[in-house]
């Protein structure tokens, strides 16, 4: 079987099989995992960073870390959640260095396979998100975009439950205020 045949096989393979292969050191299998998960990881990091170039750098960092730690993954079926946790940790580590800006982002395009009906609302959400504090933004995104429960957010971010709840409550309230103000202005 030639290289394109191998690639076709990998593209059709089940995720747990790819993870198992990648754990044995198969780079092509890991590349296929990157191909499948890059949208989710970059999307999550773009939402929480507000800076797309930075988000893509952090996404690369997250995939590199995942490749380094892949052998510590206990169950191949848990790859998605595990990868998301790594991406969140990469973001938190970057944020701890205090280099993450809170700003009104100029980036309003979203290269997406999106089924968006109202582009203004999408731009509006991206802008509104960048005005939240980074950790608040992270909790809101994990809750509303990734649909994680409060306890899942706790275990992913390492934040106490009370802090997670207050971040989500305060963050979503601010988000609603910004969105209302934006709709009023349009």
């Amino acid at each position: 079987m030639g290289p394109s045949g191998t690639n076709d096989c990998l593209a059709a393979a089940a995720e747990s099989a790819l993870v198992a292969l990648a754990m044995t050191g198969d780079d092509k299998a890991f590349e296929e995992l990157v191909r499948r998960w890059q949208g989710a990881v970059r999307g999550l990091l773009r939402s929480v960073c507000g800076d797309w170039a930075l988000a893509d750098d952090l996404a690369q960092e997250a995939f590199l870390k995942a490749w380094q730690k892949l052998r510590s993954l206990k169950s191949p079926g848990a790859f998605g959640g595990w990868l998301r946790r790594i991406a969140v940790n990469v973001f938190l580590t970057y944020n701890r260095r205090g280099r993450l800006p809170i700003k009104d982002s100029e980036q309003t395009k979203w290269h997406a396979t999106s089924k968006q009906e109202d582009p203004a609302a999408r731009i509006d959400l991206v802008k509104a998100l960048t005005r939240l504090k980074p950790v608040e933004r992270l909790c809101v995104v994990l809750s509303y975009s990734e649909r994680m429960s409060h306890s899942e957010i706790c275990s992913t971010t390492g934040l106490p439950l009370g802090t997670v709840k207050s971040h989500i409550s305060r963050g979503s309230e601010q988000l609603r205020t910004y969105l209302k103000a934006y709709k009023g202005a349009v």
Partner: protein
Amino acid sequence: MEHESDMELMRLFAEKGEPGPDEAFVGRVSRRIRRHRNAQRILMAVIAAASVAVLAVLGPWLMEGISYITLGTTFFARTVVGLLFSPVGFSVGGSLGLFLFIKMR
């Protein structure tokens, strides 16, 4: 009301979608992984070469040290065995055994 605006936020997030397929990104990750693997290999080679060099320099002293320790241990063991099998060793061992036997009863 709260619930409704929560649903509204969820709808907005769901509509936001995620970035589409990007082979350039996949390529960049693969290149970084390759670079990292090469760096690891070079590091391993440097560590191996350094270990060999250290061993070559310290080898003679190390062998000398080991031979002294072996000689010392042999001498000590021989002295202890010699003491144990002497009349003094027998009497001390016997007394100790008798003492323990009485203590245990």
